[in-house]
């Protein structure tokens, strides 16, 4: 299976993670699985290395975290998108649509995001 470059995965991590968290609050393991599922395995975050990325987003105020006791009785740290994160996601969407349109025009390919 074709894997994307590290740079592209890094650049797309903010819109991907914010999009997932805009659906509903989630925790590390679930986020990793969701990314794997939605990308058909093309993007696979290193389990342990996802957390520093989440912490970076939290530091920027794009997401918020809180601990909750899960159904199995263990504590889990959940992340949810903040209002600043929602604004960033809107702007990220615009950026990626612009980028997609440029590439689609140059290569004359479909589908386009708009």
């Amino acid at each position, binding site marked *: 299976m074709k894997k994307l470059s590290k740079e592209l995965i890094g650049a797309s991590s903010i819109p991907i993670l914010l999009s997932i968290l805009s659906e509903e609050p989630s925790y590390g393991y679930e986020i990793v699985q969701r990314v794997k599922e939605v990308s058909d395995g093309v993007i696979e975050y*290193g389990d342990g290395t996802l957390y*520093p990325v989440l*912490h970076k987003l939290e530091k920027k105020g794009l997401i918020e975290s809180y601990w909750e006791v899960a159904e199995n009785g*263990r504590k*889990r*740290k959940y992340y949810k998108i903040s209002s600043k994160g929602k604004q960033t996601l809107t702007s990220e969407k615009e950026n990626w649509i612009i980028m997609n349109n440029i590439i689609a025009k140059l290569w004359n390919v479909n589908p386009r995001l708009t």
Partner: protein
Amino acid sequence: MERQSSFNLEEKISNWKQNMLAIAGLSEDNIMELESHLYDEIEILKDKDLDDEEAYIIACKRIGRIDVIATEYRKVDPHRLTIQKMFPYVHGILIFFAFTLFTEMLVYVSTIITTQFFSLTDNIVWVAGTIMLLSIEGLVWLVYHRYTSGKELTDRLIKIPFLVFIVILSSIGIRASMYYLVSFVSPSAHGGMVLGIAIYKISLMLLLIISSLILYKKSKEKVKISYAN
């Protein structure tokens, strides 16, 4: 089945957490989060009919190498690890100051008591020496107690607010005692006492540095062994 019974999952996860703390220097919150992830991964793998040991090995592999995780965390918060690594040293220095200042205060207070109430003016150096020896004996007893009867008592004694309180209290006690002592103790006896305290502090500092280095070396070896396992 035999392999399953000898494998203790909780113990292995506890070792893994210790390594995370020692090698990666992560905060308790970060380790708890990674531990929760490890359990989630193990649970899913066990649902696929893997035993504890197999699930643990695969989950550890998926979560990634400790040094790689540490590098990623350091990118987000580069100063945290330095502060965390510095903390035990600063704490150790605070313990040293609290202990020696408290002993010094006891020496002066004992001297005042023996000279004022028992008129033992000629023996104040002996009194000071006895108090210092007793303090070392107390220290040895605390270390022995920590390793034989648990960390509860010593953990309470080395809490930072308590240590700061002892440092402040002892400093005030020393100043007040010195002010009172100079009025009736001869300069030579006072000088002898100050010299004795200085020798005591230097000896204790050397003893603590040597024992800390030995314990540090041993703990590094322990981490290496558990990391290899």
